[in-house]
């Protein structure tokens, strides 16, 4: 009764299940400002959607979810458009470079190995660093240390860069080269790993651009919106892998989830948000590590997935 046939995926799915999955990932997206691609794509594959269709349709639904999330965060004053656009320009350039790198890697063979190892190392590094840092910050919150020890050398370097400008929403003064260069870096990694890059971008904004956590979430969603518009159109055009019906069901769930997520995000403190995101990143890392270590049930997989 609750089943719907998906013409591009070539399969029938339970609407309620897909809606619930969208809601769950949308909630996380709204809270943390991550697109959720690294969670949604594996979930869709688990319910029988072909990997290529899962990834492409997910980017379509992220367009909707991040629109809704960006709007909610914009109303709360959490979107730094200036910073977002600069990161976006860097991200697009980096993505283009990343696609070329992955092409070369595939020709050399063993690209999958490098991709998965990069994934596990990145997730592990980002997750552990955020977790420990937020835990320490939460413990020290009464001490109110204004000058973190690591800032000096890094801050000096950052201040030496030309074209310094003030980012009002984030309350930081930086060279415009910073978001551009970091955007390129995240773009390259995201393209290699085949994800939107939200979970790398958020720590980059927090730790390297020193933006406040709440502005980070809104700005990240704003940037993800554009990245996913680009990916959806490209995938629909070249691979015919966007299942709009699947995306629409996910979207209804995720936009609803994203709104609740933005509300929860506002109620949580920055460090609480960081520690929660760090935990999710670490869980995904452990799951991926296990999939590398445990013997698979089936020794063959369709070509085309991650």
């Amino acid at each position, binding site marked *: 009764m609750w089943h719907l*046939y998906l*013409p591009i995926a070539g399969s029938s799915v339970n609407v309620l299940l897909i809606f619930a999955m969208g809601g769950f990932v949308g909630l996380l997206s709204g809270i943390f400002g991550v697109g959720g691609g690294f969670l949604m794509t594996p979930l869709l594959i688990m319910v029988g959607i072909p990997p290529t269709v899962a990834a492409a349709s997910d980017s379509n639904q992220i367009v909707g979810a991040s*629109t*809704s999330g960006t709007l909610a965060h914009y109303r709360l004053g959490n979107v730094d458009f200036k910073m977002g656009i600069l990161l976006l320009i860097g991200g697009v350039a980096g993505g283009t470079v990343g696609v070329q790198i992955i092409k070369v890697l595939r020709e050399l063979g063993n690209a999958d190995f490098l991709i998965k190892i990069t994934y596990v190392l990145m997730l592990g590094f980002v997750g552990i660093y955020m977790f420990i840092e937020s835990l320490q910050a939460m413990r020290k919150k009464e001490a109110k240390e204004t000058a973190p020890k690591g800032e000096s050398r890094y801050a000096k370097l950052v201040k030496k860069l030309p074209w310094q400008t003030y980012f009002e929403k984030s309350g930081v003064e930086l060279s415009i080269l910073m978001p551009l260069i970091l955007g390129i870096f995240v773009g390259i990694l995201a393209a290699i790993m085949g994800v939107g890059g939200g979970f790398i971008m958020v720590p980059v904004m927090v730790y390297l651009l020193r933006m406040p956590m709440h502005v980070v979430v809104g700005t990240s969603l704003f940037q993800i919106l554009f990245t996913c518009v680009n990916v959806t159109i490209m995938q629909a055009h070249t691979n015919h892998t966007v299942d709009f019906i699947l995306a*629409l069901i996910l*979207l209804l769930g995720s*936009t609803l989830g994203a709104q609740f997520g933005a509300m929860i995000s*506002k109620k949580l403190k920055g460090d609480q948000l960081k520690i929660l995101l760090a935990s999710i990143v670490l869980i995904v890392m452990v799951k991926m590590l296990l999939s*590398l270590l445990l013997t698979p049930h089936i020794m*063959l997989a369709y070509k085309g997935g991650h």
Partner: protein
Amino acid sequence: MKRSLKKIGINTMIICLGLSMVLALSGIGMGGSLKLRLEPNVIIIGATYNGASIKVTGEVPQGSEAVIYVTGHRRDTEFKKKGKALGLLWMNIGTVVFHDVPNLYLLFTSDQANIKSLPIGFEALKKEISITPEPEDKDFLFREFLKLKTKEGLYSINKGALEYGKSINGTKPFTCNVTLPSKLVPGNYEVHLAAINSGKVIASAKEILKAEEKGLPNLVASLAFQHSTTYGVLATVIAIIAGLIMGIIFKGGKGGH
């Protein structure tokens, strides 16, 4: 004259023998009483399609067993082969191509039928499918291939799914409910009937089953494949509008934020 008549008789006998052998090999030799009907013979894949059931009925010669198998169109399929990298981590370590893989293979028999040694079933399919690059472990790879296809519901052997009625005039009627999976792509499928006796196929028949997309799935699929860029742009625009609508609805409900 007598000799030439005798020669004609021998020639006729050889021709008759040859013809009967050809007929027997092509499976229609004793198939006079073979009947196969599909109800319905067209499956509509609409928006709410979630698998379908078709009733297959027919007749086989008394003393034989009926085997029904449904196959889809064949094409080469690429797979990633998993193996251990650095002796520790499970990775995709290469690509293999399975040639002439049917996209559907469902087999239905009665409890009594024995399909071993017949050119039907998974063992026969293994011989029909070749793999490149030629593997040392074809049996193992084919087993893994079957696991994958069975998990998807696209391949199955259903014993005891076919029932017989009372035999009349040397024919044995049968009924079989063929359940088609929810993961069905549109196209033509072949429903085969094989009458088997003493480990051999003595007659066979075939009907075409059509699976057609209608309504919303058809509209979306044709747009996605024929006007892919428009489809991509439309998909993002609708997603943005849906996101904005949700945002506006929520603002109305939660004005305090």
